[in-house]
């Protein structure tokens, strides 16, 4: 059974009633999500990618019953999102993006309280606290005294402490330092080994590449890609920047190299796609002083891969309903 199935899931805001007095001007229709059809398999880590306002949070909020769909349908663990929202949330762990916590409670009290509300034993709490380095003394402090990273850790623990069958995590590594990010990735891997499903929303491509099996990419409320991470990686262009001693190398026509440019200060930049060997071979004729190959930024990747997908005018970023 699939963990999540959406079929033509659509969310529109605004519009107003079909009949209204002439002095009332209904808000324009905003299409936050349009005809989304995806399937998340049980036991996989599924990345849900997109820039801010692409429709990621709208999708999550539809799945968890915060929003009501304007069209289409969806099920989570076989349960209908419109009818069985409470049961879905009983079996799901959710980390909202930019989580807000009750500041006047201690970390421990907050986790106890949220655990009690969930109604399931906090079987994984001790392990999660240990791996995310939330000591007993830290948990006894008030949440208002926590740093952003510590709040995020509490957010992760509250989402996973009851060992949910499905974890929906919205920008989970925001605010975590690199060490804690690593610890978090290993937690996800262990959850996957235990058969849990992770729905992982992020706009950080490198993070999704690292932990996810498959990704869906949304832009302006529409699904623009749904594929294995490996396939996505193969299509990804990397940014290259270098300095050479002498005239620039001849990179035009080299397989996988595009957008070659030489700046007035001598910096040479280009995009590199696929195999790296032809590019390195082209550099053998010059003396390279400095060379940086970095992953493309998400937005650049979108522009390169999907710039001609969809109609720019018929979809819009998530909006708050009027």
């Amino acid at each position, binding site marked *: 059974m699939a963990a999540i199935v959406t079929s033509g899931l659509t969310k529109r805001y605004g519009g107003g009633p079909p009949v209204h007095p002439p002095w009332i001007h209904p808000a324009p229709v905003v299409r936050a999500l349009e005809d989304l059809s995806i399937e998340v398999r049980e036991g996989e880590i599924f990345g849900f990618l997109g820039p801010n306002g692409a429709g990621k949070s709208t999708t999550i909020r539809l799945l*968890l*019953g915060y929003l009501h769909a304007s069209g289409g349908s969806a099920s989570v663990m076989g349960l209908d999102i419109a009818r069985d929202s*409470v049961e879905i*949330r009983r079996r799901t762990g*959710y980390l909202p993006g930019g989580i807000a916590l*009750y500041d006047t409670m201690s970390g421990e009290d907050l986790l106890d309280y*949220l655990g*009690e*509300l969930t109604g399931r034993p906090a079987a994984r709490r001790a392990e999660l606290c240990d791996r995310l380095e939330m000591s007993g003394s830290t948990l006894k402090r008030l949440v208002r005294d926590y740093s952003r990273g510590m709040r995020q850790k509490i957010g992760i623990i509250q989402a996973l402490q009851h060992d949910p069958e499905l974890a929906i995590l919205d920008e989970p590594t925001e605010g975590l330092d690199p060490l804690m990010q690593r610890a978090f990735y290993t937690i996800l891997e262990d959850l996957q080994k235990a058969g849990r499903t992770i729905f992982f929303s992020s706009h950080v491509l490198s993070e999704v590449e690292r932990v996810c099996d498959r990704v869906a990419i949304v832009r302006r409320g529409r699904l623009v890609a749904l594929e294995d991470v490996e396939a996505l990686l193969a299509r990804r262009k990397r940014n290259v920047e270098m300095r050479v001693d002498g005239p620039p190398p001849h990179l035009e026509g080299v397989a996988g190299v595009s957008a070659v440019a030489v700046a007035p200060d001598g910096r040479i930049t280009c995009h590199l796609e696929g195999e790296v060997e032809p590019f390195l071979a082209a550099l053998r004729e010059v003396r390279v002083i400095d060379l940086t190959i970095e992953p493309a930024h998400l937005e650049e990747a979108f522009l390169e891969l999907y710039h001609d997908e969809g109609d720019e005018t018929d979809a819009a970023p998530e909006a708050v*309903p009027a």
Partner: protein
Amino acid sequence: MNRALFVQTWRAQRLKILIVCVALAVWGALLPIVYGAFGQTFRDIIDSGIVPEQLTQFGGGDIFSLSGSISLGAIHPISLILNSVFAVGFATAAIAGERQRGTLEVLLARPISRRTAYVTLLLATLSFVAAGVAATLLGAVVGSAIAGVLDELAVERLPLVWLNGFLLFAAFGSIGLAASVSFDRLTPALGITAAIVVVMYFLEVLGTFWPDAEPLQPYSLFHYYQPKQILEGEAPLLNFALPAIVAAIGVVWSLVEFPRRDLAAPA
């Protein structure tokens, strides 16, 4: 109702409820003491004609009888403000405030339906209001005993006075919660509820001091809060039914509106 949410709500508000209840009890005790000490003196002053008769009445209360002084204490702005801490302040913040802070996200990520969350917060509001009104009356009893006028107090009618006050502030609490479930931010919910309470209070007070404005008083819920009338043996059903109906309308609105509305991501 969700027990964990109810208990946590009480736990989070316990210091505030303690302070408000103590303040209401002190205030409730004060006016019977004033009546015991100066009631006859005030009566003599009024009888002399120096002060117009209209200024001796305020919202159905006065200072010339124990029941009147208890009524005056109950309808006085100080009592109104203290009771509104929960009937208006807590009620409007219960959903809209949590929504604005973003903590409603975390709460509704649990297996709790919106209706259950609402009913729990409604019951919490009602329990706070009940405690506040009870504290006022407890203070009145203590104050009457201190002033040595307890024998003038119809103690057996105090539960009806409590019910009358409870229903009034329950109605405001219900309106506050209805506003709270309808808005994403605290300010409009609080503003609308506070405006309703203030306008109703103004209508009642205006009618008290200005006979031409008396026809406006029935439009105010405060007009149906009459502790003196009850303590003196009268208890018109309308004084209980009308606030109860208003409270029920607020509850029905909330139970319909809250589950059907979209909760977009907090700003």
